[in-house]
């Protein structure tokens, strides 16, 4: 087990290095540069800026300097927010995205499992049809539409109530989080519901359920011990990447609800070609994703003894 974990970790670090390298060269291949602006500066001022950011050196030298810096955990200074270190940006804004993401993933996972189990239970009857219809909506309607509609809905509720039922945007208390987290988790929830439903239905027809039934076990016990627990496995598999996806994919929700998360910086950095922030967020999120996948693989062995690795 330890050897397996170590092996996975080493591979993980290699993956992150690969992500960093690919991003670095990909980013420099994109036309345009972080120093260009609506208004051109004189050649002299541009030279001063290039010297300041080290962009005057050959690309491979920049790459070497860059690798050296990230190995020491230093992502440099942002081009657009010139006074801020990328490390500070990640440190200040990732926790916010993470809190929102945790809540969203909890909504998604709990909702997905519950709705999925419910639809499987009421297969081909009206609860199934209604929920599956909503699931299709949840998967296909883009998040900026859902975010805008839910925010408008909040405004209307507040106007009707004549007081603030829930804040329309901003950050700070749990009341600011509920609606954005639901919006953020919605498509994942819809996806998990479908996954849960099909895996529940698959399991109903397996031999061990029939064995349990013939043994005369109580229905509820079969449901919770045999059916639910086994059906959750595929859900856990996708949960790891989904966590990483949700905590990074909050761009739209963060903009609409004015939440100071990292997702914004991630997307805006690419539009602005802010080299250091692109590299910082990509490497950080890449490492996070790799870590989550490893974690899920290890967890999997714990939940399902069949895939446990022999030491």
């Amino acid at each position: 087990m330890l050897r397996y974990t170590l092996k996975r970790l080493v591979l993980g670090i290699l993956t992150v290095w690969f992500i960093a390298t690919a991003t670095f060269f990909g980013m420099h291949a994109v036309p345009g540069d972080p120093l260009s602006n609506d208004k051109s500066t004189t050649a002299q001022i541009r030279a001063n800026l290039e010297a300041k950011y080290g962009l005057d050196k050959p690309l491979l030298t920049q790459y070497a300097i860059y690798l050296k810096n990230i190995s020491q955990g230093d992502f440099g200074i942002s081009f657009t927010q010139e006074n801020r270190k990328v490390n500070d940006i990640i440190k200040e804004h990732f926790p916010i995205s993470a809190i929102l993401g945790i809540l969203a993933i909890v909504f998604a996972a709990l909702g997905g499992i519950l709705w999925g189990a419910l639809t499987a239970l009421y297969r081909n009857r009206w609860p199934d049809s209604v929920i599956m219809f909503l699931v299709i909506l949840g998967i296909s309607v883009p998040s900026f539409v859902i975010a805008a509609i839910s925010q408008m809905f909040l405004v209307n509720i507040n106007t009707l109530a004549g007081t603030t039922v829930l804040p329309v945007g901003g950050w700070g208390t749990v009341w600011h989080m509920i609606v954005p987290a639901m919006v953020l988790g919605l498509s994942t929830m819809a996806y998990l519901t479908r996954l849960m439903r099909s895996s529940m239905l698959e399991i109903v027809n397996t031999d061990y359920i029939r064995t349990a039934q013939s043994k005369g076990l109580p229905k509820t016990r079969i449901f919770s011990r045999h059916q639910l627990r086994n059906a959750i496995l595929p859900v856990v598999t996708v949960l790891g990447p989904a966590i990483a996806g949700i905590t990074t994919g909050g761009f739209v929700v963060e903009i609409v609800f004015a939440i100071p998360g990292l997702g914004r910086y991630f997307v805006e950095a690419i539009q602005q070609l802010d080299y250091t922030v692109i590299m910082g967020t990509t490497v950080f999120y890449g490492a996070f994703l790799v870590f989550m996948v490893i974690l899920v693989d290890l967890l999997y062995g714990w939940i399902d003894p069949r895939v446990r690795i022999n030491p």
Partner: protein
Amino acid sequence: MRSKSTSNSNTHSNSLSRQLGLYFVLAIVFVAGLLLALNQLAGLMGTATQEAQAVDFANNSISAVLREEPPQLDSSKATDSTSGLVLGHIMEGLLRMDLQDRLSPAIAERWEVTPTHATFWLRKDAKWSDGKPISAADFIFAWQLALKPETGSEYASLLYPIENAEAINTGKLPASALGVSAPDPHTLVVKLTRPIAFFDKLVVFPTFLPIREDFYNATQGRFGSDAKDLLYSGPYTIKSWVHGASMLLERNPHYWDSNRGKLAQINFAYITSDATATLNFFKDERIALARLQAENLTEALRLKWPIRRFADGTVFYLEFNHREDHLSRNLNFRKAIQHALDMEELVYKVTKLPGYLPGKSLFPEWLIGVEKTLREEYPASTVTVDSAKARAYLALAKEELGLAEFPEITLLTSDNPVSNIQSEWLQEVLKQTLGLTIKIDKQIFKQRLAKMSSGEFGLLLGGWGPDYNDPLTFGDLFASWNLNNRGRYKSEQMDALVATAQNATATPDRMKAFGAIQQQLFDDVVILPMYERGVTYVVHPQLKGVKRRVIGAETDYTYAYIDPDA
């Protein structure tokens, strides 16, 4: 058998749905617990935004929205409009624009510009937010700082009229060689390299704001990055700044002018670029002013809000590529397009946004000439749209260029709703009237800039916003040496006119030069002015005295106050 199994599965699912119900309750309890824990966690991080209320009469405060996190509050390096907006509230320089957009005294109570020198006499009661007096040395330090090559200030070139400034910026001279001196703490004398009649208008720009040396050094390279890393000279100070979330401004008790800073607090409670979200905040009475975009204009009209408008000073135009082996190098080709495009149609029938004006000249309507506006003194020439004439010019161009058929022409534009609709209109009109095939090349910001600089375009939707309140901010754009002349138009006559506009000291002479520049841009069809941009917005009825500006803080709340009876 079959019926039995059905009834069996019925009871089965009943007991199971009860079980599922239990899980559901457990899940809710779990989520509630989680919410509580996350609430604590978020509280610990200190990122909470102060509760926003559009207008709060009891506390004499208002709330508003910022489009983005201010990227740079170090005035020696700031270039963008959001930073300009914040700096306009928290800082004050030698001079400022008053409510009537006239140059007026600020920290300098009087000033004088001669062909060789500019002298500013500073008021004695101007103080920093820590109570120490603002002295001439603070200006000298800030200007030297902006010019040091290692600072990398993009707008350092605005300081070049000062003696030795360019040499300092290129690293040939030390910063101390700058031709600025302070005979006493309240007098600032600037030596000019060349006569520059509008130097007083230049000093309104943020690059000229004062920075105090001891404070700057104490921040150890973090100047401007946080509320505590700034020293304020303006009517407001930043009380708290939560990056990416909010910024709370509070009246500066040491500020000298009691006519400004009437509101006790200005709470920039949200930072978002989303137009719909902004309008939602306004509807929910969270913010007192919301800018309207094309997509939510109808909503505002439906709600019967009084919609206000102002021209933000930016001019948009169609640029031609004047480089070798581009069709648009041919004058008759450009004239053909000039006679085919009706900018009134573009503004009133295609763009359909209130506040937009059809473009007639590179020089927008608000620029001041000798006494009246420049455009009143030197009216812009216009052509009447005439498709027959346009086709005749195109036939001439075809002959001169020796072409059998016109190749496809690339139109470079940015990717936003307004540009999209305009470029499609251009494409359609040029196809219908002249039979030209236009390929629209939509590019996001940085990629578009790269193509603009390298000249990878036939036609270009370009625009220019002013930096200072003098026609020269537009007038020098098409000088051959100006890098913002993206089409690389090159004309000795134009260069000579720009030189006159820069160096002449008498205002009438300069305005005459601008009139001639305007005429040459028209005669030679260097560009085709398309429109002057307008901004539409809604304001809370109780908030009065908000000033919208073309130069400086786009939205200026420093004179604003709350009228509870409105």
